[in-house]
Structure formats: C-alpha cells, structure tokens
C-alpha cells in the first residue's frame, strides 16, 4: 500500500514521465515529419524536375524538328527521320503519365495544384501540336506541319513559364513548410525547456512545501496517535498555521483534552464505583452473614446490626439499634457482661463469652459472643464489633442428649426389672388364663381367674410403661380410632376427677392412629393427671384433638420423621403453670415439683418416651399463673392401612404339629406347655438352648416349631437360634421375650424366627404366633 508520500512521488514521476513521453512523442513525430517532409519535398522536386525535364525535352524536339523541317524541304530528305522524334515525344508523354504525384494535401498549396494542372495542359498542348506536326511532316503535308510546328513553338515560352511557375510555387511551398517545421521545433523546444524549468523549480518546491505543510504535520499526527493508542493522552500538536493541517491540529488538541477530562471523570467514577461496590459487598456480607453481627458504640449501644442478630434477639432492628446490649441480656448473665465489656474496651484482642439474651417473645437464646475493639488510625477506640452465634439449639440438643443418657440408664434398670417382672406376670397370666378357659371349673373360679388375668395384665402394662422410658418397649403397632381413645380417656377423667374441674373436649377428627393404644391412653391420662394436679382448687381442663400439619421447621426441631398428616391432641389447663426453669426439666426422669411421696417424677418422662416411640412430638408451654398447654402431635395412620380389625376368636392348633418350648423359667415354661397342649399341640420343653439343640439334633426329633426365650443362661435365645437355624434352616422359630430391642428384629428374621411374642403373652397370642410360624392360616374356633 503506497503512503501518501509514495503516492505523490509516483504521481510526480508519472507526470514528469508523461511529460517526457509527450515531449519525446512530439520529438519523434516532428522529427520524422520533418524528415518525411524533406523526403517528400525532395521527391516533389525530383518529380517536378522530371516534369521540367520532359518539358525541356519537348522544347528540344521542337527545335530539332524545326531544324529538320528546314531540311525536309530537300527532296531527298528521308521523312521517316521524323518518326524518331515522334517516338521521343510519345516516350515523353508516357513518362509523364507514370509520375506519381505527392498526394499529401498539407504539402500542396492551391497555387501549386493550379500551376501543376496548367503546366500539364501546356505540355499536352505542345506535345499534341508537335506530334501533329511530326505526323504531317511524315506524310508530306508540310503546310499543316509548319503550322502545327509554329504553334508548338509558340507554346514553348508559355510552357517554360508554367514550369517555372510550378517550380517557384513548389519551392515556396517547401520553404514555407520548412519554416513551419522549424518554428514547430523551436516552439516545442521552448515548451519543453519551459516545462523542464518549471519542473526543476516546481517539483522540489512542491516537495518541500508538501513536506513542510503536509508530510511533516501528518508524521507528527501519526506519532501522536500512536502515543494515544498506548494510552498516553498527554499529547498536543502545534497549531500555528491557519491552513487545513493547522485546523486539524487544533481539533486534535481539543479532542485529546476532552479525552483526558473524560478519562479523569471515568477514573473518579470508577473509584467511586469501586468504593460503593466495596461498601455494598461489606453490607451484603454484614446483612447476610449466618451469624449475628453488631457494631456497638463505646457505651455499648448498638450502632448497626444484621438480620441474624435481629433473629437472635427476636426483635426488629428499630427495637435494637440505639439501645445498649445490656438491656437484652438475661438478668442472670448480667455479671458476664460486667466482666467482659471492660476487657473489650481495654483492647483485649478477642473476647469470647457465652451468655443468654431475652428474646422479644420472652424466650431465652443462648449465644456465643466474640467481640473486638476497632480503633482509629491514631489508636484511639472507635467502636466494638461483635459476632454473636446462637447456640440455643445446640444447648437444647445437649440437654436432650443428657436426658437421653439418663433415660438410657433408667431404661437399663427398667429393662432388667421388667424382664423378671414379665416372667412372673407371664406365669400369673398364663395360669389364670388356663383356669379361665378350663370348662371344668366353676363360674366363680373362672371369674376369679379372669380378674387375676386382668390385674396381671395391668401389671404387664406398667412394666411396658417402664420400658418406654428407655424406648425399649416393642410397642404394638395396630390401628385404632383416635375418637375411641379419647372417649375412653375422657370418660375415665370425668368419672375420677374433682368435679370442680370442668372438662371440655373437642374431637375434630376421625383420624386413625397406628400404635400401642394402651400406652397412648396412659400417656394421655398422665397429661390429664398433671393438669388436675395443677388445679387443686378446680379449673378448666380442655382436651382437644384436630388434624394438624406442622411446618417442616417444627418437624425438624421436634424430630418428627416423615411429612404426612398428623393429629394434635391438646391438653390445656388453667392451673398454676410452670416457670421456665421447671418447664425446661419436665421430661427429665425423676424430676418432680410434688412433695416427697406424691410423685415419682416418671410420668412425663414416660409420656415423652411413648410419644417418641410413636414418631410424634410433645410441646409444652406454660406460664406461671396462667396454666399449661401440652400439645401432642402424632402421625395419622396411612390411608391404605387395613381397617381396624375386628376381634378375632381364638385360633385352634394346627393339626399334628409339635412344639418344642425352650425357657429357663420353670413357671413360664410350664404355662407355655399347658397352653399349647390346651390348644391341641403336642409339646415338649427344655430349660436352655444347649439341651434344645441336642434334642433337635436327633434325626427324628419330630418338632415342627420351636418357642425360644430370648434371655437364658449358658446360651441366650439369639445364639441358640443361630445354631438351630444353621442345622435346621427350614425349622420355624418363635421368639418370646419381655425385653425387645427393635434392632434385633432384623437378626431374628435372618436367624429363622418367623414370629415374636411379648411376655407376658396370652394364650390367644401364643396360638396366633405358633400358627403363623407354621405358615398356616389359623382356623378360628
């Protein structure tokens, strides 16, 4: 790509070259023209020379013929002599006709053309007369001959004159043409010389001027633009001229000045934007932090807090900012503040404390507070910034864990007691049931036996309640109508409570629950009893049930699995209420506010355990002097749950089946044998697992099912079952125990257990379990 300079250079060279070309062309045109002109002129002269020569020839012939004519008078003259002259004249004529005239009109003047024609006519006239004279002489017509000869002679002078005219005119034409050509050449040379002179002056001048006025400023502009491209706007061009380049420089300077201003403005704007962005980021971090953040003045008043802090204190920002932090501290933790704040102000690097705040709703929030003092550039204190982490839930969970550990210990104790107690009850219930179903006994005896069985059954319920403390009770899972449960409980309450207590009920649901009805009834009754105890002078007790749909937060907070519909059973009283301190410990085992001997402290613990076993939750709210509200949340049974099964009749024995009873308790073993035989099974019993294994190792042991106790010396039920199942994988087993760990259920199935029985078990339960283990549908009697 040519630069401007290069383009101008090329243009200049081209112009000069064209000029030289034109000049050369002219020179090469003029010169050849001159040469051609000279050649043609020379030819013309030559032609005319020949013409004049022909004319002179004719004149000579005339002269000679005239002399000859004088001699022709002589009689002896040979007139054929004239024939030679005739031939000469004819030759001249033929020669004249072969001359090719120069036909360039530019070289002919009209005078020359006219002179040519006139001379040709004169020559023709002379030649004609001469030929006529010669011919006449040849035939002897001398008179005609002399006359023609005289005429020809008279034509000589005019012919010479015509020829001279032609020559003169031709020479004049040639001279003019030469002069014209010389002048053309002079003018051309002058023109070329002037052009060269002008070029010699103009080209350098123009180049100098262009360099100074155009190329130089353009180079400066180019350099300036290059600097601008690198970001340097501090460039100016000299704008001293009033021409186009000067104006261009002026515009350039103006533009760069504006660019500098704009860049400065952009820089400021960018800086301000960066600051604003930084502040916004800080605000976003401050506001959206997961922990509470607070800026406090040196007097402890809140200058700025974030949302998490508002959530911790349970108040709006307006209620917090401007107030001192001590206003929100739990009164019992005031001393913590008094000790920590001075440390902060003294500049202790990081101060960490744990304290409690009073929330807006009156509840307490346990927090970890980490504070630091911010100082000015001169080191003087400016403000305090604190990080507040809500540990309320953490503390609650710790409390629950502690309670769980207590419950676990209680459970261990209860489990051991319940196991032995269940065995005793198993015997009592079993014998009573045998008596009750012995048709040979009297009605009174059978009624007595029935009473014994019921009482023993209650004792068994009590033992199960104990086990629920530790969540070790394998409660029954059977559907039942909530309405029925509540009606029974309310009926019992109305019959047994102080009549000064008004009982209001509302059952707003026909929900079905799945669980242990008796345990839930005990739990409900316990709540009612506590409510009664809180109203020694009477009051109002309301028991309300309704469908509830707790939030996810509630479910998570209270450990409710699943998301299905629930029922809420609310037990409210208008009694004394509980203080927050008491409320915090209501589910703690053995915690009671009752006088010694008036309460064991296990009631609400068992209620808590029962509700938890049923995948529910219990929330108790209470205020001193205003009563207590206990809300029990229980999951509804699934819709596809089978309808509550009607009572079934005692199933009979599977015909021909033989049962092996394995139990270390003689009482339990004997009762089981007698029940089975009463049911119609062939039965045998051993006292421990090892004996049972030996018995089963016999090839024809003949047993169809084995009833195994879980807790036995030497070899417990699990080990016994493992060995039996290894040898007799097809032999069904039934597990009977009063202490049932749900985790064992997985092991029991893998060990071959087909059914389980909870001690103490009824004969009906025993018959169902054995029949199910044998895999046969029991036939009701």
């Amino acid at each position: 790509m040519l630069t401007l300079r290069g383009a101008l250079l090329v243009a200049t060279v081209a112009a000069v070259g064209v000029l030289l070309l034109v000049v050369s062309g002219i020179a090469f045109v003029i010169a050849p023209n001159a040469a051609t002109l000279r050649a043609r002129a020379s030819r013309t002269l030559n032609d005319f020379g020949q013409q004049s020569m022909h004319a002179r020839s004719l004149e000579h012939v005339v002269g000679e013929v005239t002399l000859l004519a004088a001699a022709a008078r002589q009689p002896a003259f040979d007139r054929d002599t004239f024939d030679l002259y005739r031939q000469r004249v004819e030759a001249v004529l033929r020669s004249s006709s072969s001359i090719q005239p120069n036909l360039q009109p530019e070289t002919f003047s009209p005078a020359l053309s006219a002179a040519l024609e006139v001379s040709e006519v004169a020559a023709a006239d002379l030649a004609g007369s001469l030929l006529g004279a010669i011919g006449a002489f040849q035939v002897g017509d001398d008179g005609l001959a002399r006359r023609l000869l005289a005429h020809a002679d008279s034509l000589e002078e005019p012919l010479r004159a015509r020829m001279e005219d032609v020559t003169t005119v031709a020479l004049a034409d040639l001279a003019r043409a030469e002069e014209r050509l010389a002048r053309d050449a002079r003018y051309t040379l002058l023109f070329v010389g002037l052009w060269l002179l002008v070029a010699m002056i103009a080209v350098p001048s123009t180049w100098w001027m262009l360099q100074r006025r155009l190329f130089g400023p353009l180079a400066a502009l180019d350099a300036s633009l290059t600097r601008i491209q690198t970001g340097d706007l501090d460039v100016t061009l000299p704008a001293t001229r009033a021409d186009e380049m000067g104006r261009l420089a002026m515009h350039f300077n103006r533009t760069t000045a504006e660019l500098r201003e704009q860049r400065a403005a952009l820089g400021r704007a960018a800086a301000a934007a960066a600051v604003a962005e930084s502040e916004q980021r800080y605000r976003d971090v401050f506001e959206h932090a997961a922990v509470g953040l607070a800026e406090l003045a040196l007097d402890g008043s809140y200058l700025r807090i974030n949302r998490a802090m508002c959530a911790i204190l349970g108040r709006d920002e307006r209620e917090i900012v401007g107030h001192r932090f001590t206003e929100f501290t739990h009164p019992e933790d005031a001393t913590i503040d008094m000790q920590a704040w001075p440390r902060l102000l003294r500049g202790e690097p990081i101060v960490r404390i744990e304290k409690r705040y009073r929330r807006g709703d009156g509840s307490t929030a346990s927090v970890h507070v980490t504070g630091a003092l911010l100082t000015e550039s001169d080191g003087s204190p400016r403000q305090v910034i604190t990080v507040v982490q809500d540990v309320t839930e953490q503390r609650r969970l710790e409390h629950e864990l502690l309670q769980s550990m207590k419950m676990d210990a209680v459970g261990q104790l209860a489990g051991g007691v319940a196991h032995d107690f269940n065995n005793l009850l198993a015997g009592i219930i079993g014998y009573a049931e045998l008596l009750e179903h012995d048709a040979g006994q009297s009605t009174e005896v059978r009624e007595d036996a029935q009473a014994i069985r019921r009482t023993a059954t209650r004792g068994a319920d009590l033992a199960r309640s104990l086990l629920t403390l530790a969540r070790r009770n394998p409660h029954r899972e059977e559907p039942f109508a909530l309405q029925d449960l509540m009606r029974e409980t309310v009926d019992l309450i109305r019959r047994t409570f102080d009549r000064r207590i008004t009982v209001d009920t509302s059952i707003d649901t026909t929900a079905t629950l799945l669980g242990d009805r008796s345990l839930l009834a005990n739990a409900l009754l316990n709540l009612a009893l506590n409510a009664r105890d809180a109203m020694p002078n009477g009051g109002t007790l309301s028991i309300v049930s309704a469908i509830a749909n707790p939030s996810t937060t509630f479910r998570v907070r209270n450990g409710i699995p699943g998301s299905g519909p629930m029922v809420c059973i609310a037990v409210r009283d208008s009694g004394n209420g509980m203080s927050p301190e008491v409320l915090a410990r209501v589910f703690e085992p053995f915690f009671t506010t009752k006088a010694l001997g008036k309460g064991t402290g296990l009631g609400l613990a068992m209620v808590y355990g029962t509700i938890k076993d049923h995948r529910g939750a219990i929330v108790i709210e209470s205020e001193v002097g205003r009563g207590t509200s206990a809300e029990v949340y229980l999951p509804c049974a699934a819709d596809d749950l089978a309808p509550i099964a009607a009572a079934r009749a005692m199933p009979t024995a599977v015909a021909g089946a033989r049962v092996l009873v394995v139990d270390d308790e003689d009482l339990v073993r004997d009762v089981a044998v007698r029940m089975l035989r009463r049911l119609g099974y062939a039965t045998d019993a051993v006292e421990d697992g090892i004996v049972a294994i030996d018995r089963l190792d016999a090839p024809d042991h003949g047993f169809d099912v084995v009833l195994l106790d879980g807790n036995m010396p030497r070899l417990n039920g699990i080990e016994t079952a493992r060995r039996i199942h290894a040898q007799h994988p097809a032999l069904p087993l039934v597990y009977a125990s009063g202490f049932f760990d749900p985790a064992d259920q997985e092991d029991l199935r893998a060990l071959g257990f087909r059914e389980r029985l909870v001690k103490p078990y009824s004969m009906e339960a025993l018959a169902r379990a054995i029949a199910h283990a044998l895999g046969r549908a029991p036939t009701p009697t």
Partner: protein
Amino acid sequence: MRVSRVKGPQSAVALVVSRVVAPVVVPVVVPVVVLLLSAGCSPADRELRVGHAVPVGDLGRAMNRVSEGFFDSSAVPRLRIAPWTVVRTNDLGSETGQAERFASDPGVVAVVGHSGSKNTVLAAPIYASAGVPVLVPTATSRLLQDARDDLFLLSPPDDVEGAFLADHAVDSMAGRRVAMLYVADAFGIGIHEGVRDRMAARGATLAGEAAVAGRECTQGESGAMRGITRSLLARSRPDVVIVALSSMQTACALREMLAIDPAVRVLAADAFDPTEINVRQLSDLERAALRYVVLWEPSDDARTQEYVRRVRAETGRDPTPAHALTHDAFMLVAQAIAEGNTSRAAVRDWLHSLGTPAHPPVLGVTGPIAFTGPRGTLLRVRRLPSSHGSP
C-alpha cells in the same frame, strides 16, 4: 482546386494545441468517444452508409435514389447512400478530402468510387488505413489491381479490355492490319499494353501505333489529330484501328481517319461513350466505320429489366454501364449487410468470399459478380445506329 488554405504564423497556444494536443489527444480521445458513442448503440440500431465517392449532379442523385429504392427499407440496420460532400473545386485534394470524410465516418462500411483510376489511386491509401472496402465501378487501370487488397473492381482492367479489343479487331472485324491510337495516360497506356500483349500472344503485332497527349482536338481545332492520324495510317495502312481515346477525341480521330481512308474501321475502347458526343454530327460513314466497347448492356432477366424500368421512370433515360455498375456496387453492399456483415472488415471479407465455395457469386444487373478474377465477360461491342435508325 483544394480547399485548404496556407496558414499564417500560429500562436504558441495554438501551436501547442495543434502540435501537442491534437496528435496525441485527438487520435486517442476521438476514437474513444466515437467508440463509446457507438457502443451505446447496438449494431442493430445503427444506420449504415455506403459512401458514393463520385460527385454527381441531378442525374447521379436520381440514379442513387433508384438504387436506394432497391434497398430493403425494413432491414435492420438500414442502409443509406452517403453522397459526395466535399465542395469540388477541381482540386486533387477533393478526392482525398472526400475519402478522409468517408473513412472517418464510422457508419460508412464501404465506398463506391472513385471516378477514374487516377482518383481511385489517390484515395486508396486513405481507405486502406481506415479498413474501408472500396468497390470501383468503372476504373480499370492496372495500377488498381496492384494497389490494395481492399479494392474491388467491377469492371475489367485495361489490359483485359485491351486483349478483348485485339481479339475482336482480329476475329470479329477480320482485321489483318491492326493499328492503335491511344492517349498517353494510365488508361490509354493500359489498353495499349493489353492490345499489344494480346497481339503478341496471338503471334501478331500491331501494324502501327501512335500515342497522343489528349488535347489534339480542342476547341474545334483538329489539325494535330489530322497530322497524327495521317501519319499513323500512312505508316501502318491498317484496316482496323483500335482507339483508346476520350469520346470527343475518338470522334475527332474517326473523322480524320475516314477522311484519309474511308475504308478504315475503328474499334473504340470503353472510354468512348456515344452519349457524351453529339452523335447526330457523325455521318453514316462514320457511324458505320465505328465500333465501340461497352461494359454492360441490359439483359432480359427480370432483375435487370426492373432496374431499367425504374431508371427510366426516375430519369427518363436508360442507364449507362457506369450507372449499372455503380448500382451493382451499392447492391453488393446492401446484400453484405443483409447477411449480417455490418462492419468494414466483415463487408470486405464477404466481398472476398464471393465466387468461393463459401459464397456463390452475387447476381447483379451486370451479371454474376465475384472478385476471384477479372470480369471480362462484361465486354460487348456495339455499333452506332445509322442516322435512319438502322444498326
């Protein structure tokens, strides 16, 4: 006389313009402009012209109208005869001036003319440089045959006519002693050479010959012709004299020869045109003694008869051989254009193709036309009718 003037001293500006601009710019710019202008027009839209390089009067213009009447008026492009435009001033430059005008006219695709061999030879280089084909109706000089490749002669050259004259004089006129009287110009010399060469080819020679200047019978004075003819007859004692003279010179020579020898018979070349002289002034003896060559006579074919009819209708007279040959020249150009040859080079190539396997000869009023050889078959010998009208 030529029109150009002697120019006085020129100004520098004019000199520059004339010496610098004109030689350089005009030859470049003008053709470019002309090319652009002509490029804007498709060949199909142009009117093409055939130049008539012969100054004509009313009769000539009437003849041209007749010829244009035979052009196809619906043809595209249309053909028109471009007439002589240079003001004739008896100047040799008028022939070349007219030739330059025709050559510089891009619409002129061919030229018919000039009158006379000398004028044709003068103009030939100009046409040659412009690539213009020239159809020469009547000029017969042998110089034309040697001149250019783009000259197309419709008449036989002089030497062919000379041979014809020789054969006729010997064979038809039973001439035992044949003499020749000719004007010492290109025409006469050409005829003479033709006769002489033919005689030599036949194993004979001319009994005598005499050249004249061509002005021996002027202004009623015929003394010179008398002397020349008496000498010729005395020397050669011919029974047939072939003459190659103008019409008036022929009549003059005829009279003088018959005054010497009433038995002599005269055979005139095609330069003799009985319409150019007062034939009534010829005696029966002179009429009987004279035979003359014509380049054309109307045939009986419909084309020729239609042409003759239109000429008679337009002019009241019959067409001469020159008219017929000129008409055929125009019609050749018309047919060339009708066959799609719309450029000078194409017309020239088409004319050259006549008579070749590429294209048969074109049938004109003067007979089949081709340029592969001389048209000798045109020549006829005629005699003047007696004063009573009988041949």
